[in-house]
C-alpha cells in the first residue's frame, strides 16, 4: 500500500478522460432512447388494446428477467445480422442499452401515467381532445414532472451499468482503466481511481435527486 503511484493516473488522464466521455455519451443517448421507447411501451400497456398491451407486457417482463450482460451479447450478435454489415461496437451497445433500459423506464412511466388523476383525462375528453392530444398535452407532461426524481435515479443506475460494455471491450472509463491497469501493472491505483470517479459522479447525482425531492415535497 505504501507505494501508491499517483503518477500512473496523471500520465494516463487523457486516455481515461476519453473513456469517461464515451461512458457519458452512452449514458445520455441511452437515457433519451430508453425514455422514448419506454414511454411508448407504457402507453401500449395502458392503451386498452389487448394484443398490443400483451406484447408490450411480455417484452418488459422478458427483458427484466435476464441480465444486462446477456442482453449486450444478444445485440452484439443480432444487430450486425439484422443490418447485414458490421456497424461498430458503439452502436450495437447503444441499441442494447436502449432496448434494455426501455423496459425499466416503461415501468417508471406506467406508474407516472397512472399517478395522473382520471379527472384530467375526462376533462381533456370533454374539451374535445383526441387520445394523442390528451397524452401529449395533459397526461405526459404531468407524469414526467412527477417522475423526474426516479428518472434521474434510473439515469445514475444506467451510468453504472455502462461499465458492463467492458465485456465487449468498448473503451469506456472501466475498460480504459483496466487497459492502463494491465499495461502499467498498476491494478490497485487504477481500479481505486475508477471507483472514485464513479462514486463522485453517482453520489453527486443522488444528492441532486434528494434536493429535487425536497423541493417537490414543499
Amino acid at each position, binding site marked *: 500500500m505504501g507505494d501508491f503511484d499517483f503518477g500512473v493516473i496523471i500520465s494516463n488522464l487523457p486516455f481515461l478522460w476519453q473513456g469517461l466521455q464515451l461512458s457519458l455519451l452512452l449514458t445520455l443517448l441511452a437515457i433519451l432512447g430508453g425514455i422514448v421507447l419506454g414511454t411508448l411501451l407504457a402507453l401500449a400497456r395502458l392503451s386498452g388494446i389487448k394484443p398490443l398491451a400483451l406484447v408490450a407486457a411480455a417484452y418488459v417482463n422478458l427483458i427484466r*428477467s435476464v441480465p444486462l*450482460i446477456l442482453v449486450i451479447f444478444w445485440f452484439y450478435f443480432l444487430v450486425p445480422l439484422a443490418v447485414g454489415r458490421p456497424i461498430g461496437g458503439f452502436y450495437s451497445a447503444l441499441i442494447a442499452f436502449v432496448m434494455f433500459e426501455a423496459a425499466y423506464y416503461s415501468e417508471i412511466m406506467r406508474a407516472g401515467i397512472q399517478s395522473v388523476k382520471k379527472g384530467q383525462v375526462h376533462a381533456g375528453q370533454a374539451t374535445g381532445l383526441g387520445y394523442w392530444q390528451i397524452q401529449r398535452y395533459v397526461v405526459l407532461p404531468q407524469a414526467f414532472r412527477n417522475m423526474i426524481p426516479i428518472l434521474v435515479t434510473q439515469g445514475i443506475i444506467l451510468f453504472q451499468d455502462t461499465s458492463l460494455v467492458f465485456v465487449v471491450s468498448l473503451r469506456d472509463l472501466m475498460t480504459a482503466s483496466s487497459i492502463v*491497469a494491465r499495461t502499467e501493472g498498476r491494478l490497485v491505483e487504477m481500479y481505486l481511481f475508477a471507483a472514485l470517479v464513479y462514486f463522485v459522479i453517482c453520489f453527486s447525482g443522488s444528492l441532486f435527486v434528494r434536493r429535487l425531492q425536497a423541493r417537490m415535497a414543499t
Partner: protein
Amino acid sequence: MNYNWNWSVLFEPEYLGWLMSGLGWTISVALCAWVIALVVGSLVGVGRTLPNKFISTLCTAYVELFRNVPLLVQMFIWYFAVPEMLPEDAGRWMKRDMPQPEFVTAVVALGLYTASRVAEQVRAGIETVPKGLSSAATAQGMSVAQVYRYVLLPISFRLIVPPMTSEFLTVFKNSSLALTIGLLELTAQSQQIAEYTFQSFEAYTAATIIYVLIALTATVAMTLLERYTRIPGYVGKEG
C-alpha cells in the same frame, strides 16, 4: 439475413453439460451472495435507524459507498486490488491458496453490494412502522434492543417481503458479472457455446429461457413467502 439454424447443438451432451454447470454456478453464487446480503444488509439497515449517531453515520456511509460504485468495479477491486493491499502473507494466500478464488470473490463482492440495497429496504421497513408503537414500547420500559427485538423487527421484516422480491431476482441477474473475473456461470457458458459452435442464437436463447425460468421460480417462491408472512389487516397491505 442468412443464418444456419441448428437447435440440436443444445442437446449435445458436451454443450448441455456446459449449460447445466453454468446454471449450477449461477444458482450457487446468487444464493450464497443472498445470504451475505441478508445478514449484512439487515445489520446495516438497522444500524442506520439507531439513535447512536456514530453507528448510523457509519452505516449510511456503507450504503452510499457500495451503492454508488458499479458492481463491476467492486468485483475487480476484490479480485485484483485487495490481495495487493493486504499484508503480504494474507495477500499471497488470497492469490495462491484460497480455494475457488473466482467463486469466493464473486460471492463476497455481490453479497456486500446487494447488502447495501437490502439495507435500504430494511431501513424503509423500520421507518414505516408507526412511531407510536416504539414510543409505547419505550413507555413500557423496554430497552432499545427490546424495542427492536419485539416490536420494530417483527413488523418491518414482514412488511418488506414484497420489495425484497425484486432484490432477490436482481441477485440472480447480477451474478452474471462473475464472468468478468473468469467464473463460467450461465451467461459465460452460453457465450462459450456461441463461440465454439457459431450457433449464437440457439446458445443465447437457451440462457435466456433458463434465466426466465429462474425468475419465475423465484417469483413463485417469494409470492408464497409473502402470503405466509403477510400481516392480516395491516394498513396499506392490500393492493
